[in-house]
């Protein structure tokens, strides 16, 4: 089939227990922009069990249409039923572009869907644009551990598929009361598994604010030295109305939980203020926070790469400076 016959920007909507992941709204927002340039519409693909009530939100945040696959086999994410459902949707509707969030689900689902329909997939895109002359999707992503950027094309295969990390694109504004077409799409045989079963679902319990929502982040790295020293970071974060984050080194050392990890294999954040304490500033960490409005770094090593990127850098002992800083801030606010 001719590439020109593929039309439409489709977005896989990730939902767990009836809650739509924010990245899906971000991608519908971006999808709208791309659809406008491609002279087409953005369609949200919603998979799950009894997920009809969710279609309204999708309309509110920009979907022109929802294709919904409602099936008990899709109640909890499992690779094979979800791949089969997406494959059926893609083969039936033949979209030009399909976007997925680069999440633990998206990065498991998208590779198999793209392989099953024999097309290209570009992971962790930070930029998506339409190339003027050709109307091809130009997908830009970090490569070589985040040290360089690569612009990727999928010129001969359709659909062009891409995953995008949460927090990279922006949701479009809520259009209260908006409605869109909802198409019910059924797929046969979704329950035919590949001898895989879920024995148990274990939830991680966390009472902390999601670091992606925080306007101020106080992040600790290997230079903090030990788990106990994170208490002073907590106090500083509180004084500034923010929350604590961590580099991969601190998480691997067991000083903070993975949900706090910023970086290439952690979360991408863009707070107003990011204070990096005892963090050397490896490229993989920067990839997760370089879009912060203001970056402050405190590290006793003056050659630490983070000083090349921080707006304000302080060479010194973080364990001495942080308590004094917290105290001074509290005085200002008193």
């Amino acid at each position, binding site marked *: 089939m001719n590439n020109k016959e593929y039309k439409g920007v489709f977005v896989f909507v990730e939902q767990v227990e009836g809650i739509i992941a924010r990245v899906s709204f971000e991608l519908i927002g971006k999808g709208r922009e791309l659809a406008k340039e491609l002279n087409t519409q953005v369609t949200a693909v919603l998979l799950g069990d009894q997920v009809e009530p969710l279609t309204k939100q999708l309309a509110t945040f920009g979907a022109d249409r929802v294709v919904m696959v409602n099936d008990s086999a899709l109640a909890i994410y499992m690779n094979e039923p979800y791949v089969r459902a997406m494959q059926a949707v893609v083969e039936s509707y033949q979209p030009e572009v399909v976007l997925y969030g680069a999440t633990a689900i998206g990065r498991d689902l998208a590779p198999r869907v793209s392989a099953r329909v024999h097309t290209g997939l570009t992971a962790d895109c930070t930029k998506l644009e339409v190339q003027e002359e050709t109307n091809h999707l130009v997908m830009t992503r970090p490569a070589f551990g985040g040290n360089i950027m690569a612009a990727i094309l999928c010129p001969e295969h359709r659909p062009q598929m891409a995953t995008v990390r949460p927090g990279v694109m922006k949701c479009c504004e809520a259009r209260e009361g908006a409605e869109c077409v909802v198409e019910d799409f059924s797929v046969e045989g979704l329950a035919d598994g590949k001898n895989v079963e879920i024995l148990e679902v*274990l939830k991680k319990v966390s009472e902390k604010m999601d670091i992606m929502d925080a306007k101020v982040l106080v992040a600790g790295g290997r230079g903090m030295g030990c788990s106990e020293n994170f208490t002073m970071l907590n106090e500083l974060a509180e004084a500034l109305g923010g929350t604590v984050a961590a580099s991969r080194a601190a998480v691997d050392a067991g000083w903070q939980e993975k949900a706090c990890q910023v970086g290439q294999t952690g979360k991408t954040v863009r707070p107003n203020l990011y204070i990096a304490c005892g963090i050397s500033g490896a490229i993989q960490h920067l990839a997760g926070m370089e879009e912060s409005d203001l970056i402050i770094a405190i590290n006793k090593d003056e050659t630490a790469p983070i000083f090349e990127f921080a707006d304000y850098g302080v060479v010194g002992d973080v364990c001495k400076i942080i308590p004094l800083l917290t105290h001074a801030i509290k005085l200002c606010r008193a």
Partner: protein
Amino acid sequence: MNIVVCVKQVPDTTEVRLNPETGTLIRDGVPSIINPDDKAGLEAALRLKDQYGARVIVVSMGPMQADDALREALAMGADEAFLVSDRAFGGADTWATSSTLASAIRKIGDLAGVDLIITGRQAIDGDTAQVGPQIAEHLGLANISYAEELKVEGNAVIVKRQFEDRYHMIKAAFPCLVTALSELNVPRYMTPGGIMDAYRNKKVTIFSRADLDVEEGNIGLKGSPTRVFKSFTKAVKGKGTVIRLDAAESADWLVERLQEKFII
């Protein structure tokens, strides 16, 4: 039990730095290592060997120098290694890479029978996390990604599969594929005896283009649906202000900066 572990030799990208003046990468002297997620997968296989006497076969697709990575795997305890190497395989994206590796695994499977395939979640140079699931797709097997824990029960594997805010305990019957997180374990060191064994007694077999039954349209640059249009280094942000004062002065200086920016 026969386990195939896919490993990739990668430059240690955590050691790569940017030259702040030119904005280019300093690649000299960056060591080549076994990709960390893959090494954890290898360690998991070796533990199954310790426990059940499983046979561990390592496979890598790469240039001839990837032999070093395979020897390291053999020195850690793997039984046999295959290096998939040919100019024809070069320039491959994940579709072509996974097609090539799948055909190599199929060939190994014809010889030995494969129960479990373990790959790393993602490589630190490509970072796509696509090859593992795509190999499973080409082989028609189930894949369980993001394994934080892995054990075998009878003819099945039980995996603690990581998501952002929860885990699924998943049971999958053999044969299947699992992608490993580096959190899975702490890999063992090679032993001096292991190193000698790796070079003297164990085999690295090379699979070239002629050895593999894979379609021409699925390998190498020509077989890749995606291609790099251009690559560039990120714009260097430009250094800010760095000071070195005593602790109290540093704290005061920072407070002044925060006040200037209306944060406090």
